[in-house]
């Protein structure tokens, strides 16, 4: 309530401390109205989004992508025998679960700028998982 009113009528996306420049996904969001607002300069730091910040997150991303590939293959095989069997249902449900997990991680990183390891890595910056991922 007060958080929104404090924008004082200027319709601005509240900018996070790490501004990002990202590619709009090919969905229904594109429109001039929203592009106009984003001409505002956001500061000098540009972070390319959709890449993980920490090694641990990058590893998670890759693991999920691999799992999707594996599980799709598995499901295709299992369902060849009987497309109505329980095994077939469960196999595709697993594909769905992992696909959604992958998409959730992508959304977090891309739209919300929230790396799941953020708070863990602030406490434990020396762990392997928390090495900053260099592209």
């Amino acid at each position, binding site marked *: *309530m*007060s*958080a*929104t*009113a404090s*924008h004082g*009528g200027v*319709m601005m*996306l*509240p900018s996070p401390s790490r501004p990002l420049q990202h590619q*709009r*996904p*090919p*969905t*229904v*969001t594109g*429109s*001039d*109205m*929203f592009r106009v*607002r984003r001409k505002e300069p956001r500061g000098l730091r540009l972070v390319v989004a959709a890449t993980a910040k920490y090694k*641990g997150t990058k590893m*998670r991303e890759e*693991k*999920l*992508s691999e799992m*999707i*590939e594996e*599980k*799709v*293959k598995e*499901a*295709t095989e299992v*369902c060849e025998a009987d*497309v109505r069997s*329980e095994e*077939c*249902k*469960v*196999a*595709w*449900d*697993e594909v*769905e*679960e*992992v*696909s*959604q*997990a*992958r*998409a*959730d991680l992508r*959304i*977090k990183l891309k739209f*919300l700028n*929230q790396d*799941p*390891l953020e*708070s863990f890595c602030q*406490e434990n910056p020396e762990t392997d998982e928390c090495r900053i991922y260099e592209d």
Partner: protein
Amino acid sequence: MAVSTIYSTQALNSTHFLTSSPSSSSKQVFFYRRQTNRRFNTIITCAAQQTVVIGLAADSGCGKSTFMRRLTSVFGGAAEPPKGGNPDSNTLISDMTTVICLDDYHSLDRTGRKEKGVTALDPRANDFDLMYEQVKALKSGIAVEKPIYNHVTGLLDAPELIQPPKILVIEGLHPMFDERVRELLDFSIYLDISNEVKFAWKIQRDMAERGHSLESIKASIEARKPDFDAFIDPQKQYADAVIEVLPTQLIPDDNEGKVLRVRLIMKEGVKYFSPVYLFDEGSTISWIPCGRKLTCSYPGIKFNYQPDSYFDNEVSVVEMDGQFDRLDELIYVESHLSNLSTKFYGEVTQQMLKHADFPGSNNGTGLFQTIVGLKIRDLYEQLIANKANAPTEAAKA
């Protein structure tokens, strides 16, 4: 918010004693004083913080990030995962709200489900007793140690402590499945995506992944459909609000799923919830805002409003087909809708712009999700005001 009145007694000596009632939601303290033949009872009632519980049902686990973000941002503040906890936690916490993913109540992990041959959609994979106990506890102001279902590993991780929030949102596949849990909900929403739109969205979601193809996406939807229709879909009859997402009727033979027709189906007679309407409550309206005052680009915008019946319930339906292209279209539409529960003119528009990057920001999905968020805020404020006015009781025998 605790409301209580303390009556002080002159002296608390051995003729006085205290007992407290076992009821968890309203703590009562009884003072007894035996004096000769007369007995005084003074009952002090403290209403402990009553958490408002909202249920949100939809397919695909807890990835309804956009809806959740819109909802929590209406209350102010961003929703974030619990700090310093399990990085794979599904929970989101903001100042006023806590969002719990019901997948955390899976009784079977991925391996267990494979062994038993049940999908996550199947009630047999979920512990409704635990769900009921914990939602009930949180509603009464008691913290719980809630399990964590890790979607990456497919295992059940160590539990996390959840403090009772002001507003608890339970989202997932089965918020309205169990009757006892249903009774705990102050408001419930069902997100009903039609098959064509689901297919289009999943393509957008998955096509970039190297494991997926059109066939695999289709096969996955088909394989899950029987369980979905049997266990998830029937919940919509219990929802106070249903957001139905369908392909547009404005573009003949459109199969891209980019332009959407979205219907907000609102149950009549729900306490603290006054349905949104267009122009005249209870009438039937068809409205195309584009014309002389407002120019829209193809395919334009079309609104409908009408009373209807939905699974034997009286409902009001507001429907939007098409897309917003410009700020002034959004403001124009907002100014013609009534009962929005906004606190100032343009609040809906402002909320939409706050999350302009999210999918659905230029069509009915974003619009109705935002409106539902405002309705929930309204409901919350009414509920709290009601409890504050509930008199503290003092009875003297």
